[in-house]
């Protein structure tokens, strides 16, 4: 039973990080893209979201890795070995991205080059991060006398890998533009709102197409997981339904005069869409962590350790909860912050 609790916690972390991460890397990208359009304030809005949140988001990726090796140490052994190269690439990009993001807010005179470097590094990261998923499907891992090894060449010639890669990047842009549209609306920045709303309308269908591409390529490259996902076909349809709901949310009239669309509704619908889809994917993935060698049962930690770690999860997050709420109220919900006219990007 503990095993299922553990994998649920891990799935929770993956999901939270994938939502927060897409918002984070996406916001960085948009703030770069619109840096020359000073009138629309699109960059300002992105930075207003990004500045206080990136550190918290970054902590989630560390929490995720720590959760893997605390809960499934033997899987961490295999993952650590095969992910040396892709993992190091992620780390290199991530470090440049975070550091230059901070620097760009402080060295005003070099804002542009710094923002460009961090924006470009940032948008590649989700693509590399999600590559972990096709790797765990087993096609690219060779076990020679018990030693796992990653077959890099076949990874980079796989259509499935590219579908995942494109899905990650388009989802990043889709979710972040939705969120920023909502954020701009709350901040009464009409031009920025229209920009992000348009971006979301473009990126939404693209991300849906890439998702379908994943399914199609999985059929030939990861048949076992494809078959198991199809057992939950109705849920996949439900996920598409929420996508449509989110899309429609951007088209309906708004209660606020002068605006079209209800972005808050779209953000919620899109989050549900991703939650359901990732549930279907994750459920189909079980019991394997790395197909077919490593399962959640074969890699689970010592039961005493699990119980101790589980207790700290409960105690830790209970204690931090007020902090998260306070943080939320200051940066997501405080009109004085959202509608600040003067520059806050420091």
């Amino acid at each position, binding site marked *: 039973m503990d095993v299922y609790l553990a994998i649920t916690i891990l799935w929770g972390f993956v999901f939270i990080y994938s939502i927060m991460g897409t918002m984070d890397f996406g916001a960085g990208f948009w703030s770069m893209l619109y840096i020359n359009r000073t009138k629309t304030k699109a960059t300002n809005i992105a930075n207003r979201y990004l500045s206080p949140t990136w550190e918290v988001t970054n902590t989630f990726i560390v929490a995720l*890795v720590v959760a893997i*090796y605390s809960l499934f140490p033997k899987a961490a052994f295999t993952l650590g070995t095969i992910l040396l190269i892709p993992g190091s690439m992620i780390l290199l990009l991530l470090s440049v991205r975070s550091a230059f993001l901070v620097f760009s807010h402080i060295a005003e005179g070099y804002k542009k080059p710094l923002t460009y470097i961090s924006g470009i590094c940032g948008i590649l990261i989700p693509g590399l991060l999600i590559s972990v998923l096709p790797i765990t499907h087993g096609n690219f891992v060779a076990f020679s006398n018990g030693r796992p090894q990653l077959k890099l060449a076949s990874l980079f010639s796989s259509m499935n890998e590219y579908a995942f890669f494109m899905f990650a990047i388009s989802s990043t842009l889709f979710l972040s533009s939705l969120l920023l549209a909502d954020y701009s609306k709350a901040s009464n920045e009409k031009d920025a709102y229209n920009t992000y709303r348009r971006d979301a309308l473009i990126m939404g269908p693209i991300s849906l197409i890439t998702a379908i591409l994943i399914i199609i390529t999985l059929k030939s490259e990861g048949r076992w997981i494809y078959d198991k996902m199809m057992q939950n076909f109705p849920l996949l349809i439900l996920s598409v339904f929420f996508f449509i709901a989110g899309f429609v949310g951007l088209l309906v009239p708004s209660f606020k005069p002068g605006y079209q669309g209800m972005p808050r509704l779209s953000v919620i619908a899109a989050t549900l869409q991703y939650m359901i889809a990732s549930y279907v994917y994750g459920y189909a993935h079980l019991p394997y962590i790395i197909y077919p060698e490593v399962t959640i049962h074969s890699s689970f930690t010592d039961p005493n350790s699990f119980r101790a770690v589980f207790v700290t999860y409960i105690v830790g997050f209970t204690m931090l909860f007020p*902090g998260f709420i306070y943080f939320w109220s*200051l940066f997501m919900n405080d009109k004085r912050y959202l509608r600040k006219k003067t520059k806050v990007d420091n």
Partner: protein
Amino acid sequence: MEHLIIARSLFGTTMAVHIIFATIGVGLPMMILTAELLYQKTKDIDYSIMAKRWTKAFAIILGVSIPTGTIAGLQITLLWPGFMKVIGTVMALPFQIEIYAFFLEALFMSIYVYAADRISPWMRNVSLLFVALGGLASAVLITNVHAFEGTPAGFDIKNGKIVNVDPWAAFFNPSFGINAIHVAVSAYIVGGFIVAMVAAYKMLKSESGTIVYKFHQKALMVSLIVGGLFSLFTALSGHETAQSLYKYQPEKLAGAEGLFKTQAYAPLTIGGYTDVKTESVKWGIEVPWALSFLAGNRFDTVVKGLNDFPQKYWPPLFIHTLFNAMVGIGMFLLFIAVFGFFWKKILKRDLFPKWLLWVYVACGPLSILGIEFGWIFACTGRQPWTIYRKLSTADSVTTAGNLGILFILFVAIYIVLAVTAILVLLYYFKRNPVLEDINRTEQKNV
């Protein structure tokens, strides 16, 4: 073998870079908090300005300490999967709890910086306190993992299987408390002397007696008091740490002291280098009986020498030099801080002589070197083990290849990060001189 050496160098380099920024990240918030509290107490606006400026520097430092820490945390799994398998099973708690410390620091750092104008001064101090606590807790908890590597507890390995796991016994391993205190107090030395370095340099560059000079002199005095106090605590706790080596890792202590023969009334050798052929420390100054006294508080304490251990378990012998350098730096910093305090407060001199200011400038890098030497001593001195007498470094390392190219890439990135961080610091403070900050606050207050 080659492979293992590259892995060790890569991880050692990552840690050596992270530790610089991380230690400043632990020490500086304490200085900021001190300045804020001094401001509340004295209502001297200078202290408030110091807090603001140091916070800016801290934000830049965080821009490197967080990414390099993220690298450290992920790279340890990538490079040492054998080690992390054991850690994950037995010693996951500190890593896990450290996450909450990171969250605490990240949440309240953003609040302190980005919501400063919307929260009450009281809440600002609370936020700052949480930031300082978060940083301190990160350091203490990660040191716990290091302590566990030296004094493992809470599990057994039988036929290659990990059994009898007791995670809390592992958490409270014998050297946890002692090591954690030493790391914490030494981080505050760095916080103090980094500030002293900048203040002294600015005093050298400004006309003596001007507002700017006086401002920096105030900062210097605060940092000398903090730095000096914590140098004293560090020396005291370092003594405890050495006694813990005597008890739990005797070959490390023997290596640190260059002691080959097991003996009572063992001498303490200061300086010099360890020579295997003659089994002695060359060019060192010998203080008779001192080592025995330091190790066990009695002159007749028997201290184990290296010859009691098979040579393949010896730590590298250059740790003697690292150990001496760390202790030497500690003593010097303590002395020079007390000296400055006397000069100003007892002799009541208004100005500091130029040479003394230059010495204070050097104290910043010296304090960082102290940390580096201490860590390299502690980590390298544990060789050939990652977990003392339980798991060897060779059994911990990854089997994946291509480490050489990764080593080059990571070193390149560290250079880029360090250089840009320094340039950004210089750029920002050149653009925003102290005088402007002082004038602006004065205008606001009239």
